[in-house]
C-alpha cells in the first residue's frame, strides 16, 4: 500500500515537473519571439535614424531621374490628420521629388488642398505647372486625387467616347475596333478633367495592403510599396523605399 502511495506521489511529482517544464518552455518561446520583434523594431528604427542623419552613405545621393511622378495613398483615418501629410510632403520636397499625387478615397485631402498648398513651402498645383509655370529649385507639383477620379471618371470618359462614336460617320461593319484605343480613352479622360499621369511609384500609408481605389487606368506598371501607417512614418523608411525603387529593373513583360 505504502509503495503504491509513494509511486503515485512520485508520478504526481514527475507530472508537475513536466508541466512546469512545458510552462517554462512556452514562456521562453514567448519571450524569444517578443524579443525578436523588439530587436527588429529597434534595428529598423536605428537604421531609419542612421539614414536620416546621413550616416548611411548608400542613401546619400538618389538618382531621381527614374522617379518622374510619385503617388501617395493615404487611408481615411490618416487623411483626417493633415499635419502628417504636410510633413510627408516636406520630406519629399527635401528629397527632391518634383511631382506628387495625393490620394484618399473620400477626397478629404482634396478638400484640404488650400491648407496643404499654404503650409508646404514651394508647393503648387499640377495644373498650374501644366500651364507653363515651370517648377524651379525646390518646388513640388501636387495633384489631389479621390475615388471620383477612378471608376467614375472612366465611366464619364466611356460615355464621351460613346457619344463621339455615335455622332461620327462609321461604316456599318465597323464596331469601333479602331475607335476605342488607349489614346482615345486618355483623351476622353482629359476632357472630363482627369489627369492621366502614370505614377512610377505608389506609396501606400495605412493598415491595409491595398491601393484603396487609386485610379486603375494609371496603375499599369506602377511599383507599389506598403509603408505602414502614416502616424508612425519615418524619413529613413521613405528614403529607403525611394532608393530601392531606383534600383528596380522592369522588363515590361518581355
Amino acid at each position, binding site marked *: *500500500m*505504502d*509503495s503504491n502511495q*509513494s509511486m503515485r506521489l*512520485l508520478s504526481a*511529482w*514527475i507530472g508537475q*515537473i*513536466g508541466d*512546469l*517544464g512545458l510552462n*517554462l*518552455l512556452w514562456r*521562453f*518561446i514567448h519571450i524569444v519571439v517578443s524579443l525578436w520583434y523588439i530587436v527588429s523594431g529597434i534595428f529598423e528604427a536605428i537604421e531609419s535614424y542612421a539614414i536620416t542623419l546621413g550616416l548611411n552613405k548608400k542613401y546619400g545621393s538618389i538618382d531621381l531621374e527614374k522617379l518622374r511622378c510619385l503617388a501617395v495613398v493615404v487611408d481615411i483615418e490618416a487623411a483626417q490628420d493633415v499635419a502628417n501629410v504636410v510633413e510627408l510632403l516636406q520630406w519629399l520636397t527635401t528629397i527632391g521629388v518634383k511631382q506628387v499625387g495625393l490620394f484618399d478615397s473620400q477626397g478629404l485631402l482634396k478638400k484640404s488642398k488650400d491648407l496643404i498648398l499654404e503650409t508646404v513651402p514651394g508647393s503648387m498645383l499640377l495644373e498650374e505647372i501644366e500651364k507653363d509655370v515651370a517648377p524651379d529649385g525646390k518646388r513640388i507639383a501636387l495633384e489631389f486625387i479621390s475615388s471620383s477620379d*477612378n*471608376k*467614375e471618371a*472612366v*465611366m464619364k470618359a*466611356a*460615355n464621351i*467616347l*460613346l*457619344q463621339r*462614336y*455615335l455622332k461620327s460617320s462609321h461604316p456599318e461593319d465597323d*464596331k*469601333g*475596333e479602331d*475607335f*476605342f*484605343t*488607349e489614346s482615345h*480613352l486618355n483623351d476622353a479622360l482629359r476632357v472630363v478633367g482627369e489627369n492621366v499621369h502614370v505614377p512610377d511609384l505608389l506609396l501606400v500609408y495605412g*493598415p*491595409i*495592403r*491595398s*491601393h*484603396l*481605389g487609386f485610379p*486603375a*487606368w494609371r*496603375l*499599369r*506598371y*506602377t*511599383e*507599389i*510599396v*506598403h509603408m505602414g501607417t502614416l502616424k508612425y512614418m519615418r524619413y529613413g523608411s521613405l528614403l529607403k523605399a525611394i532608393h530601392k525603387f531606383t534600383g528596380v529593373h*522592369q522588363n*515590361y*513583360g*518581355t
Partner: protein
Amino acid sequence: MNFMIHANHLLVLFTISTMLSVLWFLLSLLSLLLLPCLRPCFPAKGSLKNKKKIDKGTYVVGEEETPKELQRELMPRHVAVIMDGNRRWAKQTGLLTSQGYEAGAKRLLEFADLCFKLGINTVSAFAFSTENWGRHKIEVKCLMYLFQRYLKSKIQFFQSKEIRVSVIGNLAKIPESLLRTVHELEEATKSYKKKHLILAIDYSGRFDILGACKNIVKKSEQGLIREEDVDETFFERELQTRCTEFPSPDLLIRTSGEQRISNFFLWQLAYTEFFFSPVLWPDFDKQKFIEALVSYQRRDRRFGSRL
C-alpha cells in the same frame, strides 16, 4: 512485503526527474531552433501519405482540413495570382526555360486544388500578358504549345474535380489549336459551379476596360441600351470577369519579389489585398500560401468585413 522509500531515495529520484525534465526542455529548445534548418530535408507531416498521384508525376494535395492558423469563414472568395519567376527558377535550378514553365503549370494546378479545398470559390491566374508577345518568338511558341498540351491533357482532371475553367484575354492572336482546346475545355466544364479557375491568356487590364467600352457601343447600336443606362455596375458586367460570380479578387498574390500589378485586373483590383512574395512561383508551396492567407485574414479581422 511493505517497504518505505527513504527521504534520500526520494531526493535522488527527484533530482533525476528534474535533470530529465531540464534535458527534455533543452532538447525541445534545440529542436525548435533546428526545425527551420531541417524542414527542407524532410517532407511535411503527412505530405506523402495524403497525396494522390495524378498522371505524369503531378502531385495534388489530399483532402484538406483548414489549418489551425486560418479561419474558414474569413477565407477569400476569389484569389488572383501573378505567377512570376518561372524563367528565373529554371535558370537557378539549371533547367531549360520550358521546364520552368512546366513546373509553373504544375504548381498552378496544385495551388488551385488547394484553394478549392480550403473553400475558395474562384482562382484567377495571369498566364500570359499582352506584353509577353514581345518575348523571343521561340519562347512564345513554346509557351503556346505548353498551354495547348497541358490544358488538353487536363480536361479529364478538371471534370473529375468538377472545376469550371474559363479563359479570358484577347485570344485573337493565339494559335488555332490552342483556341480549339480552350473552347473544348470551357464547354466540357461549363456546368460546374463551386470551383472556378480563370486563366488570363493574352490579357491586359487596359484592353479589358477598352473592350467593355466597345461592348457598350455594340449594345447601344443594337438598341439594347440607352446612354443613361451606362453606370459602374453595368460597365462591370461588360468586363471579361463577368464569367465569375465574384469578379473582384479579395486577395492578389504576386511571386518573385516584384511589387506591381503589371496590367493585370486594373479595374477589378480596387480594394484587393496585395501579398507580394519573394519566392519564385514554382517554389510557392502550401506553407507560403498559408502565410498569404494569414496575412489576409489578419487584415480582414481588423476591419470586420470585406471591403
